[in-house]
């Protein structure tokens, strides 16, 4: 079958040509023309394909460049540093932010080991494991700079695998400013704490400074009361002086306690003590006052109550004194009752309920909620009328709560108030306590006892030595630690009363040196610390230094007497 073009050419040429020669010539020309056309067409087509391929290649390249430029523009515009590294940790590329954070040009960084920039890591696996181990999406590293500077950075690492190779993308964020802000906060907190410490220190110092003259005032008043030849009027004056001095001391103690609680600086002792004796002695101490006001003061001791417990007797004493004192203060007729019973017995522990009820003026219902708040008495006039800092109940509540106890109050105006508090104690192993031999108060005497009083303050020397002389003691006085050590060489003392705060050589140091003396008696001789500081640490420190007991100034003469005689007996 002939090609359609040839067929058509034949037909056309046949129509036009008149001779066979003409036909042949025209046919050949037409066929040749077809070949040429076909060839030209092929060439043209090839050319077009080649041009198109070139264009497509070029376009492809441009698109690639464009998308690369786009990507790189994105990467360079982010604030975080972006670093790509290979699997052996070599840096492949960094963005502008990374160069800024690390403070090096990309050409310096390329090819170097990324991990070598960091302070804490040896190699890449260690770094990556550390990152995987951290819970956070970022973790903190430090980038080493010149001259030992370290830049804190948050980093995250993610594997980034392309067709050709495996890489990691490390994102770093400079957190110097945040760290600085954190540090400023820490500094500010420390400063605040320092200020608070200074405040506490100031209070402690002030309380000591105030106690020292108070010691003298109360001490002298006590001495005056011992005088036989006072007129009734004079006795009243001196009694008032004593009452006021003691009141002032209570106020100072309240403020000191309050500040200690506020600054969280309060500690509680854990010592075995006779609970009954403590409560009963408070009752006895207030008996005089109750009798004076013709008020019935009663202690109900439940039969299940343990005799001895482990806790802080001083603080319990403080709480009870406050509550019983308050009740007596606000009651003009009727009674004040102290009830002690077991709330819950839990084997080694026992919860005890104390309840102090009175038939006093009571507390208005709208003031009941505020009664334990700082600086509020039920009415501001009660402060004026009844005295006190208004801190007593606040301190009581805080002291109880700090020992896992609690306090509640019910009251009816004109009928009376009931303060009920619970306090947990550890039970003492032995409930049969050897009670200190009752002190025969008829005539106090320490006759034949040789005492050394180490005290720098002249007034205190005088007060103490007057009491001691009254009790028929033989008293030697040393003004400071060195004189005490000197006196010890030439005298045999039965007991030493040691002031803590002394210039040159304080009481602790002096005690340590006494205990270090070669002869055996110096290890045994009782040393009782005398201090105006009521802070518990002072007591601990005194015990550590080798002292046997501890009395705060201004001292109660009875207390001093008992401590001395107790320590003499023990020795």
């Amino acid at each position, binding site marked *: 079958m002939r090609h*359609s*073009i040839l067929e*058509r*050419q034949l037909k056309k040429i046949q129509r036009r040509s008149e001779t066979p020669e003409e036909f042949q010539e025209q046919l050949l020309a*037409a066929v040749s*023309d*077809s070949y040429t*056309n076909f060839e030209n067409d092929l060439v*043209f*087509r090839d*050319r*077009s394909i080649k*041009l*198109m391929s070139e*264009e*497509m290649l070029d*376009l492809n390249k441009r698109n690639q460049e464009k998308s690369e430029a786009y990507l790189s523009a994105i990467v360079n515009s982010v604030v975080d540093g972006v670093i790509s590294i290979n699997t052996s940790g070599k840096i492949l590329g960094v963005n502008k932010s990374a160069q800024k954070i690390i403070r090096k040009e990309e050409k310096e960084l390329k090819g170097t080991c990324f991990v070598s920039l960091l302070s804490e890591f040896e190699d890449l696996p260690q770094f990556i494991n550390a990152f995987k181990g951290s819970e956070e999406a970022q973790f903190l590293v430090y980038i080493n700079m010149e001259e030992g500077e370290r830049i804190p950075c948050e980093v995250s690492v993610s594997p980034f695998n392309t067709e050709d190779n495996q890489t990691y993308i490390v994102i770093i964020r400079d957190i110097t400013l945040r760290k600085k802000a954190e540090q400023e906060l820490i500094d500010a907190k420390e400063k605040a704490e320092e200020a608070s410490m200074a405040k506490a220190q100031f209070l402690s110092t002030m309380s000591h400074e105030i106690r020292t003259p108070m010691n003298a005032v109360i001490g002298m008043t006590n001495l005056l009361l011992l005088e036989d030849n006072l007129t009734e009027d004079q006795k009243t004056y001196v009694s008032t002086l004593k009452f006021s001095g003691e009141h002032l001391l209570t106020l100072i103690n309240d403020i000191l306690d309050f500040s200690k609680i506020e600054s969280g600086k309060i500690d509680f002792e854990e010592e075995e003590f006779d609970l009954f004796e403590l409560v009963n002695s408070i009752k006895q101490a207030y008996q005089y006052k109750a009798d004076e006001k013709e008020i019935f003061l009663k202690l109900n001791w439940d039969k299940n109550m343990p005799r001895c417990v482990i806790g802080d007797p001083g603080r319990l004493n403080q709480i009870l004194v406050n509550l019983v004192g308050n009740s007596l203060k606000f009651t003009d007729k009727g009674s004040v009752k102290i009830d002690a019973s077991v709330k819950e017995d839990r084997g080694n522990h026992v919860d005890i309920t104390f309840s102090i009820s009175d038939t006093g003026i009571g507390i208005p219902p709208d003031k009941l909620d505020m009664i334990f708040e700082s600086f509020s008495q039920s009415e501001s006039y009660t402060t004026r009328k009844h005295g006190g800092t208004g801190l007593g109940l606040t301190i009581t509540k805080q002291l109880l709560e700090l020992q896992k106890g609690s306090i509640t109050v019910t009251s009816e105006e004109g009928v009376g108030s009931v303060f009920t508090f619970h306090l947990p104690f550890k039970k003492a192993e032995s409930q049969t306590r050897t009670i200190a031999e009752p002190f025969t108060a008829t005539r106090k005497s320490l006759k034949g006892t040789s005492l050394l009083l180490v005290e720098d303050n002249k007034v205190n020397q005088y007060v103490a030595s007057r009491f001691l002389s009254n009790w028929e003691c033989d008293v030697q006085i040393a003004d400071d630690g060195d004189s005490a050590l000197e006196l010890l060489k030439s005298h045999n003392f039965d007991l030493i009363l040691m002031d803590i705060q002394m210039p040159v050589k304080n009481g602790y140091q002096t005690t340590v040196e006494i205990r270090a003396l070669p002869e055996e008696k110096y290890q045994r001789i009782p040393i009782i610390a005398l201090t105006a500081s009521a802070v518990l640490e002072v007591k601990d420190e005194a015990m550590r230094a080798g002292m046997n007991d501890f009395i705060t100034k201004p001292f109660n003469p009875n207390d001093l007497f008992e401590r001395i005689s107790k320590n003499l007996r023990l020795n």
Partner: protein
Amino acid sequence: MQTTQLIWKGNSWENYGANENIDPQLVLFFGATKVIAQPKIYATLREKFPTAQILGCSTAGEIIEDEVLDGNAVATAIRFDKTTLDVAYEFIDSSDQSYDVGEKLGKAISKEGLKSVFVLSDGLAVNGSDLIKGISSQLPKEVIISGGLSGDGADFGRTLVACNDYALPGQVAVVGFYGDHIHIGRGSIGGWDPFGPDRVVTKSKSNVLYELDGKPALDLYKKYLGEKAEELPSSALLFPLMIRPADSQEEGIVRTILAVNEGDKSMTFAGDIPEGYMAKLMMSNFDRLIDGANEAASITESQNRHKENGESLAILISCVGRKLVLGHRIEEEVETVQSVFDKNTKQIGFYSYGEISSNVKTDQCELHNQTMTITLITEK
């Protein structure tokens, strides 16, 4: 309906094949510019058919039955049994008047019973897209519009249109078909394939394209044409341009080139090239183009028509660009079209600078380029 085919024999019109002489209402003639520019072309037709509406245009090649001629003229005389006609024409000076001219023509033609409008337009001074929009704006939607832009061989020099007068440049003529008995089938297929990268139309004005991707469009064509650049503007027909809106994923429309301007390196196309559109070069080969022509015929044939009363007339308007590619095989596309239709269908037509056809699916009339566009007239 009855037709008589005629061919110009230098001095007179002669019957083409065995044709009876009839008394036609419509005569269409197509011929090379230099041929139909002769007053005797029209004068002799008018003498032959004194009462007929005579319309014609210049060409880039003439089609009669299965033959493609160059530098000649052909005509067909149509006798309708029941269909009536109306004609209108307008002159145009520059392409920016295209819409207005179309609107005037649409207004001028009677609407009563109008079924279809056949358009013959100047091929160089007209923006075909705008012209069609203008005509359509005045016609009911269901009226089928078809036709073509006149050609001037591969010269792009002067195109002529005749409407009951001598053929003249800068003219647009329309003939309307009326009544319930006329049926118009149509089909339009290219057979070109886009190739190479998408290019953005970065600078253009109406149908004048200046830049693609920020570079002169003419430079791109010259690069691809190589030696053939000397044959511009006609050689640009080897690479028609397909354009589409940037956000569209559909196949675009094809634009054919009308002129180039070496001064500002611009190219003028037969239709709009809006800025921001995506453009792609196209190319084809013999087989694809011939297959396209066959498909256009099949679509046309498939439309329901009534063959009871004798003859049908297929008016073939094909793009000059196809003629450039097909060369010696140009007649194959005419043959393949003829093979689809029955023996009673006569073929007449021309190679044009643009084809006009309603979309079969949407009835939206569009300007096409580089296609074989067929209008099949039947009367029942």
